[in-house]
């Protein structure tokens, strides 16, 4: 069940980005993304969770680059969201792999997928709203984001040092 969801997520993430990039004739990038997706599927089948961290960074970077060159934001969000879901599921599959079959794995998978779906839909909704509203990046917005960013980074550093 979870592996099927993982496959769907990888296809969604890689497929969305590849489709968007194929529209502007970036053939090499499309092939690269498809190869990356194939490798991710293979890594997921082999339960290589370590591969996911690198791949999600590449796919999010590809989505960000797509936004910058003004590709369709919908495909980019779908790509990043698919990458997030696949990244989560690859780790979840790794945890399931070490559990014995006698545990309630079906119940855990069902609950995990339900929560993941809710979070994904919420994220998608928020992202879609933000795209639709298309807030202008005024100086005030920029200042606010900079302050929030600085505070967040300070908190992050403090948290990491405590850890």
């Amino acid at each position, binding site marked *: 069940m979870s592996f099927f969801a993982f496959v769907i997520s990888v296809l969604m993430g890689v497929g969305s980005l590849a489709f968007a990039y194929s529209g502007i004739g970036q053939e090499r990038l499309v092939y690269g993304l498809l190869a990356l997706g194939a490798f991710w599927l293979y890594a997921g089948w082999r339960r290589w969770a370590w591969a996911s961290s690198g791949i999600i*960074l590449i796919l999010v970077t590809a989505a*960000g680059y797509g936004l910058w060159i003004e590709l369709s934001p919908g495909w980019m*969000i779908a790509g990043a969201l698919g990458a997030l879901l696949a990244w989560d599921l690859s780790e979840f599959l790794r945890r399931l792999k070490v559990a*014995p079959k006698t545990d*309630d794995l079906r119940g*855990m998978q069902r609950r995990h997928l339900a*929560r993941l779906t809710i979070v994904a839909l919420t994220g998608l909704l928020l992202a879609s709203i933000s795209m639709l509203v298309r807030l202008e990046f005024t100086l005030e917005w920029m200042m606010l984001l900079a302050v929030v960013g600085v505070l967040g*980074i300070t908190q992050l550093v403090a948290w990491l040092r405590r850890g």
Partner: protein
Amino acid sequence: MSRTFLLILIIYALLLAGLATLHGEFVGLALPFVAYLLVGFWRAPDEIKLEVYRTLSTERAVPDENVVVTVDVTNQGADIEELVLEDICSPKLTVRSGSPRHLLSLKKGDSYSWTYTINGPRGSYLFGGIKVQAMDYFGVRPGRQQIHARSELFIFPPLTRLKYIKIRTRRTRVYSGTIPARLGGPGVEFFGLREYQPGDPPRWINWRASARHSESLYANEFQQERVADVGIVLDGREKTNQFPGERSLFEHSVLATASLADAFLSQGNRVSLLHYGRYLDWTLPAYGKVQRERILHALAHAQTGGSPVFSGLEHIPVRLFPAHSQVVLVSPLDAGDMDVLIQLRARGYQIMVISPDPVSFELSYLPENSSVALAARVVRMERDLLIKKLQHAGVQVLDWNVAHPFDQVIKQRLGPPPALLRAIGGRI
């Protein structure tokens, strides 16, 4: 890279990209990641409060005997969505059924219990604790802990019960036992004649001798039987025990040592054990069942080892063994050991060598061909010569082909003579 760090890195990278390019879409792209991270943090367990108990079906087992491990976990803290529990047991132990690792959800106040079955080779195995990993919905902020739950499993060498081992030391202890003490007194075996003394049982009177000497009566005297000091030396040197392909005679030596110690203690003797290998492991001499436990514990830990200091037997601390006591060496023997054994014999110790035969052991797995047969013949002759020299020096040597059960070999060579021979006063 931790999952949290990766998520925060992506979120900040997108926010900074938005700031740098003045594109609001980057912030929108970061929102699913923010939602994911916040939900993870929201449901992360603050504190892991678990009570863990582990019980073993037995704490003393023999090799390959199944031991059932039961682990009970109770959650005294908040609900934990995903809990990975792993009972840490030695990699030398084999899990026969069940699993030491489980993945589950545990609500507050709930308990979970599981069992698994293990077995393994001889040794002492410490179960340190239970490794716990508690996670939120998405494993963003896992809490790890190791909960202390100490148990110890001893896998002792299998004991072969030996009925009787005939030894004869020059010095015995004061308590009565089974070893002839070379002293007259109450006993079974005839020892000599002495003048009848008031209080002697009338059936002790030797009428034949008394008839020859009309002036007084003579009584039979019997040999006292007492307990003795027995020091067992287990040879754990790598060079005598290890063979190519991880094969080892040491397990046979350990089995023999355990059986001998059990037999000597059952006869009432005071027994000590010296494990001579990488270092010296000395079990102080004592009597009885408690001493048997001590020796079995020492044998459970015993391993072969190599050391330049203890490569020969010349560093056996002889002072540990009382003068004129019985010393039993359990060793496959090396050509260099002969001098040490002869010196020990010259000091007045009764030496018995139980020697698992390395030649027949090695032949049992080597291919049958003329080269192997010739080599076997040569080393067999060398070994026979060594044994003969030792026997000539007064060392009692039992050459044990480990393909034969130890108890049968002992019964044939060191046990009491058969009833028929005893009846006619014969000796083996």
